[in-house]
């Protein structure tokens, strides 16, 4: 069993066409055309992208990210939110919170953006075989987890229980509502959603998502936890899993840091000795436990 979150055996755009995997190619975006822009919540949208030259997007592993470039505006690191089983459409789900993502929100079908990637480590869907899988997502953190859920549902028989614990601020912030219903209905996933503040007709759970870990149905001795959300939420989620007896080796989380190059050159994403862009974003808890509680590291 490798100690670190494993590097995926997927080809980068550079090596896919046989070229040298030098820095120039991974730094150079490829044009992608927007096929569809879908609103997920008041500030969140999904872009469906296809390679502008009609080629197939490079394969990706759940949890990896791309760098998306908007002409003349800038570039942002966004995790892939689509289905690794249908790689012809590349999906990214983004909150419009910065100058680039706010401008991207205005894009429509037919517009072209630059894409480079995929980069980084992936969720341990192999390591989770034969075990219960517990996803914990906070807000937009569901987007990087969705490809792992797709992969597990595609091979549902290889996994025991699948549990999704999902928290948002309000009911109107809940993403992928149709899929949450499907997963809970047809695919034998235990889906629990909670909100910080109940509004409108909400009759479900109210409270932080980490509280759900205590009472959700999984086997602490034979499970894998995959956590993605705000850093403080992930810390508390880890505490809850540890309290239930889940081994540090079986807990994985996805980190966010400033990224400019995505291949370990620019230095921005350093977190202790790690470059989050290439040693992460998905880390095994054992490897980064000593960094999680250090202020401003």
């Amino acid at each position, binding site marked *: 069993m490798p100690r670190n979150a494993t590097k995926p055996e997927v080809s980068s755009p550079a090596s896919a066409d046989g070229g040298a995997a030098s820095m120039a190619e991974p730094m150079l975006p490829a044009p992608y055309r927007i096929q569809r822009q879908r609103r997920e919540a008041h500030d969140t949208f999904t872009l469906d992208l296809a390679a502008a030259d009609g080629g197939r997007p490079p394969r990706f592993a759940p949890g990896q990210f791309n760098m998306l470039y908007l002409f003349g505006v800038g570039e942002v690191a966004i995790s892939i939110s689509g289905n690794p089983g249908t790689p012809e459409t590349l999906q990214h789900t983004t909150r419009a919170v910065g100058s680039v993502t706010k401008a991207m929100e205005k894009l429509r079908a037919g517009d072209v953006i630059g894409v480079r990637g995929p980069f980084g480590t992936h969720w341990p869907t192999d390591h989770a075989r034969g075990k219960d899988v517990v996803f914990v997502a906070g807000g937009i953190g569901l987007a990087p987890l969705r490809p792992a859920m797709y992969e597990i549902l595609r091979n549902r028989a290889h996994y025991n229980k699948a549990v999704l614990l999902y928290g948002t601020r309000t009911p109107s912030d809940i993403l992928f509502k149709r899929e949450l219903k499907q997963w809970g209905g047809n695919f034998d996933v235990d889906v629990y959603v909670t909100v910080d503040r109940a509004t409108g007709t909400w009759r479900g759970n109210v409270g932080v998502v980490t509280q759900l870990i205590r009472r959700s149905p999984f086997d602490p001795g034979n499970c894998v936890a995959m956590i993605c959300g705000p850093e403080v939420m992930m810390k508390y989620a880890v505490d809850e899993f540890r309290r239930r007896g889940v081994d540090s080796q079986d807990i994985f989380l996805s980190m966010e840091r400033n990224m400019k190059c995505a291949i370990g050159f620019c230095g921005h994403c350093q977190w202790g000795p790690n470059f989050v862009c290439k040693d992460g974003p998905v880390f095994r808890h054992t490897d980064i436990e000593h960094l999680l509680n250090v202020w*401003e*590291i």
Partner: protein
Amino acid sequence: MHVLERAQFDTLLEALQQHGRQVIGPVRRDGVIGYEPVRSAGDLPVGWADEQEAGRYRLHHKDHGRLFDYTAGFHTWKRYLYPPTAVLWQASRDNGRLSFETPSETPPKFALLGVRACELHAIAIQDKVFLDGAHPDPAYAVRRNNAFIIAVNCGRAGGTCFCASMETGPRAQGGYDLALTEVAEDGRHYFTVEAGTKKGERLLDELELREAIEAERAAAAAAVEAAANQMGRQMPVDGLRELLAANPESPRWEAVAKRCLCCANCTMACPTCFCSTVHDSAAMTGETAKRERVWDSCFTMEFSYVHGGSVRKDASSRYRQWMTHKLSSWHDQFGSSGCVGCGRCITWCPVGIDITEEAWLLQEAHGGPTRTGE
């Protein structure tokens, strides 16, 4: 070992130029010795030497006529191998189509004249960063592979040097094409010359220099020995890597942050610091755009910005990041220290923060060795 007389020095520069090389070497400008294009020996800082202390740099002229009596200045060779700004690509937009292309720049073939032992180590360290990973940087590779390196052994230690304790100097141990040692005594002024590569040997053959005699070899060895003995500072490297990794919460970080201005001078002057950011811009017509890579520093607030704010808001966490990266996590990432003991970060710190002093204070605060050896 061969001998190049001072009077012959221009023949070395001419030979390099005849090979189509742009010679970059020490030049006095704006009160500091930097690395700039050099055409003849007259451009070199003849007779100039620096006086350096924490937060202080002054040049003084002497009558000895030496070409290389100065020690490390503000410039580093990364300026030529990894330029402060570089265009990564250009994009053009035409009728709903978007295309990207890398610039087809051909950088000059450099001859780097006057590379010190610590700087040879710094270049080797940046080679690891830019060439040894999964994605080698082709622009760096071209500049680096085309560069002819003429090292100069130090005959004098600078006021803030500590290469001896980092085991990176003052004698050049490899990584050069030619290495010179300057000797000016008893009315004679010459350089002993050694080749480190085949390229260097070929140039030596062209110059048709005579072999050094025993007295000349001994004089050159003594000059470098003197520099090693002059070194006033020492980095307490024993256990330092582990100590830094184990003490992110040390009170020392708050203490140094009271003085640190987060000006980023240390990172700009450091010969190994490699961080960069990108600047995206679009032409006024809206048809073309480009991305430039520019040097960046972990001391800026923007460096660690993610949505919601910067990760490292406080000066203490930024200084900790820089020093811990340089002396500890660099080992994890690249298999060596990121510090070569050149002392630039000490000299060019406007408030005179001394990385060796900070390392000693950390050692003393956390049970490590003390300066008095107790």
